[in-house]
């Protein structure tokens, strides 16, 4: 990877990212009537080097540790911070690109800028050089992560097989009511997908989704089947059982809704989170269920970042 390319990427990001993406929202604010001695305590206990001063949601000034030191040097006679704060404040709007923030920090030599809402003038947050660097690193990491996933794709298998369309399919049988073996199938799925060279994040999502589905089959039915189809762009997991069926799928999808009997709950299952967890891991989830006949889950996970 050459350096020039990296610099370009950062340059691209500073135009793409907005001040609001990098600013700190959970900031310490002070009101103008607190005393300088109290301010010292605020700065010390929060380990910050300055704070915006706000009156009725409106930014009226800013005070920094430098102002505090100056005040100490001049005798440290206690007074409201209002009389020592800087009133002509340079601010940034939350919808400005990061590059503006960088420019202003550089030009004016300030450590921080309050960020305000363009329409209302309300204080939204504060941005420092550190925040900008952190947000850039975070973005770069996401980018790198996507690249990694791309690299990890089970491409070697799919490239070695000469065909217009390649699908790998493996099947598993789940025994009902056997909690000692519950999890074995999804453990097998996890190992197999890992061996295929699929990215760990994708494998983890597939493993969790199939684990939850497997536990449902074990808990509520006399058994079922899980089939996994791997293509170069997606993994499809189909879980079929001939159990009691789900009378109300929408209700079953609600977090915390559970019909599990006491003994299953005592094992740490049946918390009513299974289907939600599956949904969270899947890019697409279809549930077909007929009461008295059985249930089929169709889970689809895309092989891209996300």
């Amino acid at each position, binding site marked *: 990877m050459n350096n020039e390319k990296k610099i370009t990427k950062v340059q691209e990001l500073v135009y793409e990212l907005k001040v609001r993406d990098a600013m700190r929202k*959970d900031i310490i604010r002070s009101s103008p009537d607190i005393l300088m001695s109290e301010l010292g305590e605020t700065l010390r206990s929060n380990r910050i080097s300055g704070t915006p001063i706000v009156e009725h949601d409106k930014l009226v000034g800013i005070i920094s540790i430098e102002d505090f030191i100056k005040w100490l040097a001049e005798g440290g006679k206690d007074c409201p911070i209002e009389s020592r704060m800087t009133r002509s404040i340079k601010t940034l709007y939350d919808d400005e690109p990061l590059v503006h923030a960088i420019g202003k920090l550089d030009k004016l030599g300030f450590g921080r800028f309050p960020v305000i809402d363009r329409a209302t003038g309300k204080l939204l947050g504060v941005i420092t050089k550190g925040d900008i660097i952190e947000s850039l690193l975070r973005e770069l990491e996401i980018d790198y992560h996507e690249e990694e996933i791309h690299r990890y794709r089970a491409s070697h298998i799919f490239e070695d097989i000469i065909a217009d369309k390649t699908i790998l399919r493996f099947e598993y049988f789940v025994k009902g009511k056997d*909690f*000692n073996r*519950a*999890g074995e199938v*999804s*453990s097998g799925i*996890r190992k197999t997908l890992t061996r295929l060279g699929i990215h760990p994040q994708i494998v*983890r999502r597939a*493993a*969790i989704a199939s*684990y*939850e589905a497997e*536990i449902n089959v074990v808990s509520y039915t006399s058994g079922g089947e899980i089939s996994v189809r791997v293509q170069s762009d997606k993994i499809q997991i189909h879980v079929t059982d001939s159990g009691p069926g789900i009378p109300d799928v929408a209700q079953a999808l609600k977090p915390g809704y559970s019909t599990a009997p006491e003994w299953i709950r005592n*094992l*740490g*299952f049946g*918390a009513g*989170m*299974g289907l*939600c*967890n599956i949904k*969270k891991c899947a890019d697409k989830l279809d549930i077909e269920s007929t009461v008295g006949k059985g249930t089929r889950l169709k889970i689809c996970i895309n092989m891209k970042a996300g």
Partner: protein
Amino acid sequence: MKLKEIVEKMSLEVIGTATDLDREVTGGYASDLLSDVLANAREGDLWITLQIHSNVVAVASMKGLSGIVLINNREPEEDTVKKAESENVPILVSKMPAFELVGKLYALGIKGSQDNA
């Protein structure tokens, strides 16, 4: 912090023979609901639970947890120990109940998902 250090400082009993205690513990999660752990624990977390059946190993290995600590001196089922060894998931036992154990781990610097500030 290395798992080894935590084992020493909290006087945890190490289950099994071939346990790899050299791994890094990057956080903690306490829960007895497996789905909750699957949904909310993070890779590298040390998991505090009272569940002793073998599915805890499946969950820990699926999430890439750094280890499982059983509370109240609970003894893992035989199958759990076997699975833990084959999946290379450390199982440790504490004499303490969950509340005290979590508090002491927290004091050691093991943090949860909400305090990364």
